[in-house]
């Protein structure tokens, strides 16, 4: 019963860690010490996560279909989508880079979205299945989130570096915008998600 703060009748200030009695936390309570908004759980967590996740999923379609990088050289210009970029990396024999880009640009976002989806569904459906593992999954999502920006770094660095006029120019494609949106949206979705909700739905021991 007293295994978590809320159940014990407390709300923890997210900023200064001060414990407050969970009397009327919803009513715009503020921490008496530091002034931060008090909430027992992240406000509106599921809804925000869902909205952001769906937005990310929508963005993911054009992010993969549209070119992220347009390389113009003497031999004409070539527009690469994420996947075609990976394929050409492999074609050029750069397996390491290819694997890295594939991991960062395809695996990570998909993984992130799937895990978030699963977590949201599980919390909403109040599944009691292994809250510990689900929490671990959530940590993976948070941890891995920043890595999916790798492709964006590749694009932005290339764009900045390769400006040789007629010889070679790299321009970002519209797909890069969508891909960046996917990454940002999933990161927000992940941070909107309150992992404590996983435990709230579980019978406490």
């Amino acid at each position: 019963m007293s295994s978590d703060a809320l159940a014990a009748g407390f709300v923890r200030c997210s900023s200064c860690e001060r414990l407050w009695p969970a009397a009327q936390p919803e009513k715009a309570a503020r921490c008496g010490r530091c002034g931060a908004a008090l909430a027992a759980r992240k406000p509106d967590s599921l809804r925000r996560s869902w909205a952001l996740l769906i937005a990310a999923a929508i963005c993911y379609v054009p992010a993969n279909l549209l070119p992220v990088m347009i390389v113009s050289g003497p031999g004409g210009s070539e527009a690469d989508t994420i996947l075609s970029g990976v394929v050409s990396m492999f074609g050029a024999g750069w397996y390491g880079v290819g694997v890295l880009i594939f991991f960062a640009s395809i695996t990570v976002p998909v993984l992130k979205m799937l895990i978030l989806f699963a977590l949201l569904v599980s919390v909403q459906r109040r599944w009691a299945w292994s809250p510990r593992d689900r929490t671990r999954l959530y940590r993976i999502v948070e941890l891995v989130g920043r890595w999916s920006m790798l492709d964006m770094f590749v694009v932005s660095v290339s764009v900045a570096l390769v400006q040789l006029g007629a010889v070679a120019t790299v321009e970002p494609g519209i797909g890069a915008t969508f891909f960046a949106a996917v990454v940002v949206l999933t990161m927000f979705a992940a941070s909107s998600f309150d992992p404590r909700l996983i435990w709230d739905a579980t019978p406490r021991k």
Partner: protein
Amino acid sequence: MSADNGPGTATGQDAGPQEPVVKGRRRLSAIWLIPAVVAVVAGTLAYRAILDRGPQVVVVFESAEGLKAGKSKVQYREVEVGSVDEVKVRDLEHVEIHVSLDPRLHPFVTQDMAWWVVRPRMSGGVISGLQTIVSGAYLTFEPGSKGKPQTREFTGLEEPPIPASNRPGLDLVLHTDEVGGLQAGSHLYFRDIEVGDVLHYALAQDGKSVEVQVIVEDAYARWVTSHSRFWNAGGVDVSVGAEGLDVKTESLASIVGGGIAFDSPAGGEPAKDGDVFWLHSSRADVAQSESTHGGLGLVLETGSLGGVSLGNPVYYRELPVGAVVSHGLAKDGRTVQVRVNVERRYESLVRSNTVFWNASGISADLGLSGLHVHAESLKSLRSGGVGFATPPEPGLPVEDGSVFELHPEVKQKWLEWQPDFSAGKPASPGEPHAGASFFHHEGKTEAQAAEAAAEPQPGAQKHGFLRRLFGGHDGSAKPK
């Protein structure tokens, strides 16, 4: 026990009748704006992508040399208007190039659209498509005419088409012996001004000449007349003559890219589309061919050739009025036959009683009055020639192919003859229009374009008008 009755949870479903629910609803609408906006943006993009899809065209070539799927472009007047999506083999002899075009081209993708590949080419000594060495080959086309049936599959041209047909201007056909550095795109010059282009050239049907299609811009078309004479102005024309070294070129561009020049002596009807002209191999050849072709053909018989050679001028009063066309042994082998051509306008100078002599070299005779050294002209001294004179009572006009004796040397009295040709048939021979013809180089043209192939003549006779000028002075001075 569970989160739903915990006051801190905000999980939509368990929103009770408490105040926070309302708050939650408001937030709900705000946060769902994000996916809504994203959906709208992505949807618009997709819609536009579908809408912007221009005509998808398949062009069939024998080879896709230089074309790469996804990389090669379609350009029209050097502007990118489409791209090559796919390159694949159709059968063992053809490849298909799948192309997507700008949607605005839609009305022009009709049956008579012509496709070809622009790649570095070297034809007729001209390199074209040089920019594609670096940029890679690209596809280009001549738009089809609006209103014709649409089609999506084309057979590409292996060679760029002749940019003829729809270009405004006067279309002419020039026949010539050899292309001599000309190529499609070589310019046409009139008084050193660019007035047109060579569209293309091809071997004539009989294989005996080359047909060069040229176009003269409308603005200059009126300067082409039936009297116009065309010559190949490519390269540099260097001639060393008695007058000194003469270097002549139309323009720097014509040195490299070849060119055709023409002039139009006074008179003549304006040329019409499709008119045929002879293209002379050089400016000198224009004058040359006028003296060797189309005039009065005569046969001179002599015991030995004595320095007369092809292209040597035929002089009348030291004025070149014709040229030696050929020479050879007579059939019986007893004499040498020299064929000469006297320009049409001078033909009345030749009469049945005319005498011809070999004017090559110096003739000297020692007499009581002293030593007479005689040379027809400096030029004949160098290269030989034939002179002739007609007695004071001219005989009848002669016909083509008449035979005369060629005397080995001139007699003084021949040079003193002053015949009166006014009795003869054609009215004013000699140089009635010396002033006018000076500016028109050779007076009226006899060498009409379609005339027989000009044999390339050595010792090209350049600046005939100059010599005529000098010759005229000498001639008037001599008989005193």
